[in-house]
C-alpha cells in the first residue's frame, strides 16, 4: 500500500458493492454462542447476560431490542472486549468473529481488531468524541492507528472523503473544528465516519440515534444505511425503538432479562410475533398510524437480575401463562416457531399464534394495514 489514492480506491475496486442480502447463508461474520456474563455487586451477582446466542451474516443488519437492563449492550461490549472486568465476568460461551475466538484474544490482538475489523458507534456523540482534539484529528488518528504507513496528508484526504460520505458539507474546511462547534447530528455523522474509516466487517451501533431529534434521527439513520451498504459490513443495531428496528433491520433479536426470547426476520417479528413479551411490547407502543389510541401496557415491571423469577423470566407478567406450572418450573429454550429461522422461547408459542388471529396479539396490528402472512418476508 503506497499512496493514499490507492488506499481510497482499492477497497472500492475489490468490493462487490451492495452485497446481496442472500449472502446470509454464508458463514456468519460474528457468532455468539451461549454467552453468559455476570456482574459482582455488593447486593449480589447480577446475571446480565444468560446463554445468549445469535449470528450476524455478511451485509446483514441484526437489531437487538429490549428494555433497559435486558443485556443488549453488555452482549455487544463483550464482543468488543470492552466489558469492565471486574465487576464484569464472562461465565461461559464464546464469541467467534470470522472464525476466531474473541474471548480468548489477547489485549493486543483486540486492539488491532477494534476500530478496524469491528467498530462501534455509541449513543451520545458529544461525549464519545474527545473535546480537546479537532474532529479531523480524531478521524486521522483512527486511520493511522491501524495503518502506520499512511501519511498525514493521505489520512487527511481520506478523512475529507469520509466526512463527505456521511453528508458533512464542505468537509475540507471543517476538519479543524471541535466537537462543541458541531450539532449532535453532525457529531454522530462524524462518529459514523470514524466507525467506517477502516472498512469494518462488523459495525456495532448502540442506540445511535436515541440522543437525537426526530428529523435528525431520520437523516442519521439514512447515513448509517448508506455507510453500511457501501462498506458491506455486517451490523448489530442495539435499540429500544421498534420504529428504528422496522426501518433498519433484516433480522431481530428480542431480549428480556438477559435472555433472548425471540428471534426472526423483521417481517416475522412485527407481523407474527410468537412470544408474549414481543406481543406486549408492540401493544405498548404508541404509534402514529392506526385509529385506536388505547395502549395495552404489560403489567408489572422487569425482574431484578439478582433474583430472577424461576422458569421463564417473563412468567410474572405474562398474560398467556394462565396459572400453568410449566412456566414457573421450566426455563424455556429457543425453539423453531413457524417459519424457518423464527424462534421463540415460550412453552406455549403456538397459542401466541392462535391468539394473534383475534385475541390479545391481534391488538398488535391495530390500525396497521392488514398484513397477510408471507408479504413481510424480505428474503426467501
Amino acid at each position, binding site marked *: 500500500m503506497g499512496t493514499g489514492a490507492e488506499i481510497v480506491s482499492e477497497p472500492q475496486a475489490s468490493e462487490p458493492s451492495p452485497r446481496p442480502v442472500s449472502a446470509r447463508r454464508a458463514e456468519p461474520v460474528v457468532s455468539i454462542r451461549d454467552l453468559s456474563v455476570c456482574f459482582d455487586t455488593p447486593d449480589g451477582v447480577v446475571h446480565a447476560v444468560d446463554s445468549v446466542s445469535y449470528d450476524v451474516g455478511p451485509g446483514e443488519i441484526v437489531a437487538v431490542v429490549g*428494555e*433497559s437492563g435486558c443485556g443488549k449492550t453488555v452482549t455487544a461490549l463483550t464482543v468488543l472486549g470492552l466489558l469492565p472486568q471486574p465487576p464484569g465476568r464472562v461465565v461461559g460461551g464464546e464469541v467467534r468473529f470470522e472464525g476466531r475466538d474473541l474471548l480468548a484474544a489477547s489485549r493486543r490482538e483486540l486492539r488491532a481488531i477494534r476500530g478496524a475489523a469491528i467498530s462501534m458507534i455509541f449513543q451520545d456523540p458529544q461525549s464519545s468524541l474527545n473535546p480537546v482534539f479537532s474532529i479531523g484529528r480524531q478521524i486521522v488518528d483512527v486511520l493511522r492507528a491501524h495503518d502506520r504507513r499512511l501519511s498525514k496528508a493521505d489520512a487527511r484526504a481520506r478523512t475529507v472523503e469520509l466526512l463527505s460520505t456521511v453528508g458533512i458539507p464542505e468537509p475540507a474546511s471543517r476538519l479543524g473544528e471541535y466537537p462543541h462547534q458541531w450539532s449532535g447530528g453532525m457529531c454522530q455523522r462524524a462518529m459514523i465516519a470514524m466507525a467506517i474509516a477502516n472498512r469494518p466487517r462488523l459495525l456495532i451501533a448502540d442506540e445511535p440515534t436515541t440522543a437525537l*431529534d*426526530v*428529523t*435528525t*434521527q*431520520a437523516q442519521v*439513520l*439514512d447515513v448509517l*444505511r*448508506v455507510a453500511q*451498504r457501501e462498506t458491506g459490513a455486517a451490523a448489530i443495531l442495539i435499540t*429500544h*425503538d*421498534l*420504529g*428504528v*428496528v*422496522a*426501518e433498519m*433491520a433484516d433480522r431481530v433479536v428480542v431480549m428480556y432479562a438477559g435472555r433472548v426470547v425471540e428471534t426472526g426476520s*423483521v*417481517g416475522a417479528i*412485527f407481523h407474527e410475533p410468537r412470544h408474549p413479551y414481543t406481543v*406486549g*411490547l*408492540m*401493544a*405498548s*407502543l*404508541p*404509534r*402514529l*398510524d392506526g385509529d385506536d*389510541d*388505547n*395502549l*395495552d*401496557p*404489560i*403489567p*408489572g*415491571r*422487569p425482574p431484578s437480575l439478582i433474583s430472577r423469577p424461576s422458569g421463564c423470566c417473563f412468567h410474572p407478567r405474562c*398474560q398467556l401463562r394462565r396459572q400453568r406450572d410449566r412456566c414457573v418450573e421450566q426455563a424455556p429454550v429457543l425453539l423453531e416457531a413457524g417459519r424457518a429461522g423464527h424462534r421463540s422461547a415460550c412453552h406455549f408459542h403456538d397459542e401466541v399464534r392462535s391468539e394473534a388471529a383475534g385475541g390479545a396479539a391481534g391488538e398488535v396490528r391495530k390500525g*396497521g*394495514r392488514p*398484513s397477510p402472512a408471507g*408479504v*413481510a418476508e*424480505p428474503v426467501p
Partner: protein
Amino acid sequence: MTSPAPPSAPAPARPSGAGPYARAAPGDEVLRVEDLAVHFGSPAGQWRRAEPVRAVDGISFTLDAGETLGLVGESGCGKSTTALAVMRLVTPTSGRILFRGQDITTHSRKRMRPLRRNIQIVFQDPHASVNPRLTVNRIVAEPLEVHGIVGTERRARVAQLLRLVGLDPEHGARHPHQFSGGQLQRVGIARALALDPQVLVLDEPVSALDVSIQAQIITLLRQLQDRLGLAYLFISHDLSVVRHISHRVAVMFRGRIVETGDRATVYRSPTHAYTRALLAAVPVPDPDRRRALPA
C-alpha cells in the same frame, strides 16, 4: 384492557384549606396564554451586541378543564420554557398568562403562592426530581406541609395519593433508590396531585421510561384525568406519545406555534411544512412501510 394499576380507591377528598378557586366544570377554560414571549440574555451594552435568545416568541393557547393540550417540538423549540413560564418559574418578557380569567403574569412570588396548588408540574427525570434523602411519604407530604395540612389528615392523604397512582402505601417508608424509574414517576405524579390541582404541566413525563412502563404511565395519566377532571399541558418531543394522550395538539418550532388544532386534524392532514416534515421523520414500526433510501 388491562391496566397496570387500576386506581380503585374512591375519588380523593379535597384536602382542607381549599384554594381561592373553586374547581372548574368540565369544558371551562382554566388556562389562557396570550402572545407569550420569553427572551433570555441581557440587553446590548457597550461590549455586547448579542441578540437575546427568543426562546418563546409570541405564542397563544387555551386549556380547558378535563382536556389535554399536547405541545410538541424538537429540542430548543421553546416547549420547556413555555412550561416554566406557565408555572411562573421564569418571568415572561411580554404577553399574558391567565389562570381562570385572572392575570397572573406579574404576580409576585407571595401572590403566586396560594395559586401554586392549582398549577403543578411533573418533570422528565423521576430520579432527579425527588430528594434522595427523603422517604416517599415525606416527598409526597411536602406540598401538603408547605400548604399547612397537618397531622392525621396529612398521613391519610399521602396514603390515598399513593393508592391513587397505583403504589402500595406500605412502600411509603422507602427511599427513592429502592424504586424503579416508572414507580418513581408515579411518586412524582402523586406529589403533583397532592394539593388537588386543576392544571398539571407534564414536561416529558414518559421520555425517560421504557416502552412497557411508558404505556403504564400514559394509561394512568388518562385514568386520572377522567376521574379528577384535570387539565394537562403535555410537553413532549415524541409525536406518537402526544397523539395517544392529547385532545388538541400545538406544534412548536423556533419559539412559535406553527400549527395547532384538534388531534385528528393535525395528524391526518397537517398543513404546515414543518409538521409534515416532523411526521414524515418518525420511523413507522412496520417493516412493510420502510422509507426508501435517498439515492
